[in-house]
């Protein structure tokens, strides 16, 4: 393995993020090749966290753009400060400034509100980490716009001209796959798929994030989740849920799993009523039994 890749993995671990080799490799390639990284995976596998950890590791600001349906250029890129422009225009009007000069005055950088994307490319002292979160929620039109931005790292504002990136940001895009990301955008990026963590990785995550959890409890939790995810669920619990649950169990001063506690705290893991209803007490018992015994749990 390349020493650079190992270094990234170790640096991330110091930040409390247990990175698989594939995650470290993808980050290494993305930062050295200067290409955005598209990260896909189920909710709660730690996609957003990667960007946060990367920003901390590089010591650079993290700029985050949360996507949603209807997100447009004015929220994502820039907006003019209309009230201030209006006031200035009135003042200039009283001074008898002609329309063209007035326009020149009010459409200047001073009246430009920088939104996340513009902020990301106008950082003065080095590249920022730009997280474009849940890109799958934005409309196709916005995706096309991003495509342009991510290939040239420049923005043209009709009233102002073109703004070129001073430092190209490290870009991470995440997607929950609620819709297919267009091929063109995918092609601009490198791609990483994050799976649910393996048993060993999950134990390490719990130990790192929930210091109060004993070795035994962490192992039981990880084993329980492994068999739980093997079931047919509408919303499989992610790492975030695992951590919540571990914390809850530690707060309840549990050092091992027992069916009763599991049943009471199941809401930390399963966030869909159907999933909970379909897990009767008897099966919880069997899962707990298997998690404690270390054997394979029955997959129902």
């Amino acid at each position, binding site marked *: 393995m390349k020493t650079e890749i190992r270094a990234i993995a170790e640096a991330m671990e110091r930040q409390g993020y247990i990175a698989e*080799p594939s995650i470290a490799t993808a980050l290494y390639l993305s930062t050295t090749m200067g290409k955005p990284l598209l990260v896909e995976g189920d909710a709660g596998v730690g996609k957003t966290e990667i960007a946060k950890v990367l920003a901390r590791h590089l010591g650079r600001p993290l700029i985050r753009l949360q996507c949603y349906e209807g997100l447009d250029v004015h929220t994502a890129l820039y907006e003019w400060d209309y009230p201030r422009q209006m006031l200035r*225009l009135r003042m200039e009007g009283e001074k008898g400034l002609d*329309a063209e000069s007035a326009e020149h005055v009010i459409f200047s950088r001073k009246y430009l509100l920088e939104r996340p994307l513009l902020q990301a490319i106008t950082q003065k002292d080095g590249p920022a980490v730009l997280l474009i979160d849940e890109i799958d929620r934005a409309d196709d039109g916005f995706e096309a716009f991003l495509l342009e931005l991510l290939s040239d790292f420049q923005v043209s504002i009709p009233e102002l001209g073109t703004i070129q990136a001073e430092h190209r940001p490290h870009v991470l895009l995440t997607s929950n*796959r609620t*819709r297919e990301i267009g091929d063109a955008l995918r092609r601009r990026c490198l791609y990483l*798929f994050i799976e649910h963590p393996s048993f060993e990785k999950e134990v390490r995550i719990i130990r790192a994030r929930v210091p109060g959890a004993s070795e035994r409890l962490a192992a039981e939790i990880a084993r329980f989740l492994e068999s739980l995810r093997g079931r047919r669920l509408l919303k499989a619990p992610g790492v975030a849920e695992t951590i919540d649950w571990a914390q809850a169990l530690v707060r309840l001063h549990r050092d091992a799993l027992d069916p009763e506690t599991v049943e009471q705290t199941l809401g930390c893991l399963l966030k869909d009523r159907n999933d909970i209803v379909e897990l009767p007490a008897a099966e919880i018992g069997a899962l707990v039994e298997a998690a404690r015994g270390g054997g394979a749990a029955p997959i129902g």
Partner: protein
Amino acid sequence: MTAVDLVAHVAVFARALRERGIRMSLSDEADAVAALTLSDLSDRDEVRTVLRVALKIRRRDAETFDELFALLWASGEAAGRSRDTRTSRKKDDPLKNFGGLPGARMEAQQTERHSREGRSDVLGYSPEAMLRKKPFDECSERDLAEMERLLARLALALATRKSRRLVPTRGRGRVDPRRSLRRAIATDGEILRLARRTRAIEEPRLVVLCDTSGSMDRHVRFLLAFLLSLKKAARRSELFAFNTSLVRLTPWITPTKIAATLDRMAAGVPGWSGGTQIGHCLAAFAERYLDEMVGPGTVVVIVSDGLDRGDTGPLVSAMRAISARAKRVVWLNPLLGDPRYEPTARGMAAALPYVDVFAPAHNLESLERLLPRLSAA
């Protein structure tokens, strides 16, 4: 390994992936070469990860990728001799279970479509009105061309949903300060008329699952023609066929060439006969495609008679998963046009609680009535 070697290896590998149906562009290959020069080529796992990242291998293609990568790695050239990959392609071809639609029948319809003299222009009644009510299975070859033109018109009439995106409008809407102010510059900052924005009209998103089994045989061609016309109006639609297994048709569709597409599908895809395993196929859909293709704005259309021989368990859980994500689930049943039919087929009865719209699809009129319900306003 020199850079030239790398390029050659990546090219060979990319071709093997393409032959297995994984889309791959030249820029992906370029990324792969660039990424490989940055990595430790003696570390198998690292090379595999690097290729996965640079070639943008999706999860659903990961198994195929790993398989081919193992070949590539095992002997630098084994994967290259495309003989190997070709035989393996044949072996794993997802379409292998399907025979072909009798080519002769398709050809006959094709020529029919080209000869227009078969049109019935008898005075005194509208052939269109007749066609609209004519059940599909009673249509003669002659009606086909007319039918398809009607279908195209219908699909275009498909209303569309409103997006959350705002676009400029001359009518009512929210105030758009940006444009208002721009206009006001000419009048010394005095806003004489407010510019407004309103929600854009958006194409509906459809995911259509069409049963092509024996019991549906008579209807399938018409329904597919309808769905292909729909694809013209709703370009982001996805189309699947299923009988004993599920096949994604979307990549094969050229919406502007319905006839050509139908022929291509007939040559390659479903031998529309044999039994159905609806539950099994819908479960496969839910497993592989649900997450990325079905969202809160998507209408899922299932075209089937619900005559399932399998166990209803997988059907129920698949339907529940689908209806939980989709905006609406529409089930089109050609048998519903028959007044004697009651949805007592076990599969149909099991699926019904998760269906928002249960409608007939036995003639054009029924499809026409359906259109407003497909557009998710």
